């Protein structure tokens, strides 16, 4: 079976600035959940951004294959329509644009790409209800403009809800746990657990251990100074909790 993601020797810099990713190798198979940990400023968000195609970064070396095709040659919106989803560390506000309207536009963009018929308002609403139930999220967010006036927790829940609706092949969750109180963390991680699927891979970026108590990863990596300096299985996270990753960072 084709890997969902194969990153080989990826190096990237801020456009016109310094190098942030200094040779990343990572392979992710369908159904797997990977956690990427590491100190602030290590390049975790940059890795997510580069994979999602955010402007402002320049790939200088290496390759990324996504479902067997060259990811880096695809524009960002095409990556998304091909099932790559990024849950933003800081979800963006779009005033005046209804959350539901936005999501339906996004969903139908993906369906068009896959040659599926677009969902009309009623079909869409039905799908929304199902996912809300699945995730145990209230419908209060739906009537509002995209992320406008949402609390930190509401924004993160909204990201997970979008992910549930868009049913990606690869989900990158960038610090989805940060800034959440314990209840919100539980809602979000329950959501992520429900979205685990044999056809889907999830990469969770975090610098706290506590998320991994709720969403148990198959693989854990430590990213420090632009490189993956250590990897292990689910037990590695527990180990890290005791030792910290300072000693790994020094090695980098």
């Amino acid at each position: 079976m084709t890997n969902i993601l194969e990153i080989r020797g990826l190096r990237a810099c801020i456009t016109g600035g310094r190098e942030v990713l200094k040779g990343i190798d990572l392979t992710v198979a369908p159904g797997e959940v990977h956690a990427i940990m590491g100190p602030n400023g290590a390049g975790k968000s940059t890795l997510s951004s580069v994979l999602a195609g955010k402007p402002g970064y320049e790939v200088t070396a290496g390759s990324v294959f996504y479902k067997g095709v060259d990811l880096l040659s695809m524009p960002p919106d095409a990556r998304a329509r091909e099932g790559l989803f990024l849950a933003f560390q800081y979800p963006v506000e779009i005033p005046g644009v209804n959350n539901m309207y936005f999501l339906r536009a996004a969903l139908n963009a993906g369906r068009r790409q896959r040659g599926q018929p677009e969902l009309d308002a009623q079909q869409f609403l039905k799908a929304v209800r199902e996912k809300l139930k699945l995730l145990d999220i209230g419908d209060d967010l739906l009537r509002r403009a995209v992320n406008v006036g949402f609390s930190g927790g509401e924004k993160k829940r909204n990201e997970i809800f979008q992910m549930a609706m868009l049913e990606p092949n690869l989900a990158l969750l960038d610090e989805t746990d940060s800034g959440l109180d314990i209840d919100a963390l539980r809602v979000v991680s329950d959501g992520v657990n429900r979205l685990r699927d044999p056809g889907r891979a999830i990469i969770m970026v975090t610098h706290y251990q506590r998320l991994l108590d709720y969403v148990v990863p198959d693989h854990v990596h430590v990213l420090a100074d632009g490189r993956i300096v250590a990897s292990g299985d689910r037990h590695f996270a527990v180990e890290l909790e005791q030792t910290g990753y300072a000693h790994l960072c020094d090695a980098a």
Partner: protein
Amino acid sequence: MSDVTIAERPAAGPEDILDSIVQGEGYKYGFFTEIEAEEAPPGLNEDIVRFISAKKGEPGWLLDWRLKAFRRWQTMDPPDWAKLNIAPIDYQAASYYSAPKSLKDAPKSLDEVDPELLKTYEKLGIPLGERAALAGVAVDAVFDSVSVATTYKDKLGELGIIFCSFGEAVREHPDLVRRYLGSVVPVADNFFAALNSAVFSDGSFVYVPPGVRCPMELSTYFRINAAKTGQFERTLLIADKGAYVSYLEGCTAPQRDENQLHAAVVELVAMEDAEIKYATVQNWYPGDADGKGGIYNFVTKRGACRGDRAKISWAQVETGSAITWKYPSCLLEGDHSVGAFYSVAITNNRQQADTGTKMIHIGRNTSSTVISKGISAGRGQNTYRGQIKVLSAADGARNYTQCDSLLIGKSCGAHTVPYIDVRHPGAKVEHEATTSKISDEQMFYCQQRGLTAEDALSLIVNGFCKEVLNELPMEFAVEAQKLLAVSLEGSVG
């Protein structure tokens, strides 16, 4: 066929035919090829004014009115206070009476129409059946619309609503025209209004009798005829006591005209307890990417809330023209009268818009709302200019103004020029203004959810304009949204 529009001119009698030739609209009926109208030489003088009036068979009082306007116009200078960069206009070089176009020049089928234009129609979602007619193809659809129009006209007639061309109103309802013409915008109100008063070609007239609620949206023409609107349009709309009317002007389809100079006047009169909603979509040719060849649009629009509790609301979507100079205003004369102005103005490439409103609080407990959304892209320059005036007798006057500007790119400009003139100590006047940019983060967020850059931009812009789009008649709003997207094409990389 849209069921909310109504043609201003139904069955064509001999008089109508003559009239329509004089207006330069002859070919819309499709069978006047041989009739050639005389043409006035370029230039403007009293003889030309007399010529226009004679061509239209106008009564003496109207000719006198035109002459009075012309004499005043000669003493006036074009306004120079707007933030518009306009090369001097040679008013003597223009022709003020245009002969009808020959049918020979009209395309015979859609195959002969510029494919770019057809693509635009498609993007705007204009029904297939209307595209040919909009593009000026001489087809049967035009006849269909005339007959549908007749049905509507009958229906309106039963309610006592008058809806006809200005020329027809002068002939059929001279007393009404005489009573109200110039009563809101006096002949010498400003340079362009005076010019219009002297040489106006034609336009629309609406009268809604007391207590009557007009059951449908009125539009100047069927959309298919909108492309041939006159250069100097004159509109007069009266809602008598307790009447209600919603009026739609313009068309989302791009409109071209060989006359660069346009100066329209619209007057609204709302009597006691009457309500007028006036919506405009303006999409005149903006010129090429360098601004060459675009329409100069100088418009005077004003409504008087003459009776107590009268309401007037202006909603406009301005996307076209090289130059837009336009300030739809309300005179809040009656106690408890209400004025509103909702505006979206887009400037792209080299377009310049200086637009806004005036709310003049005269009566007691009058209130007004102003929501203006200016969007600048390319090298466009967009100015909001608004005046809120509260006279000393206007107890309890209130105004709320919200003025938002959105910038797309680095070479455009947005400017806000509020004039607040309050002569009553108890007046409540609030003004809020914001300027924002479409951020790269917003664009990327949308794209990361699968939207193309164009769709992302359109979504963000429509969100920005939402409060105004909500004020448009429903099906108009859908077209207007698409129009915003089309207007901004090419402004993201």
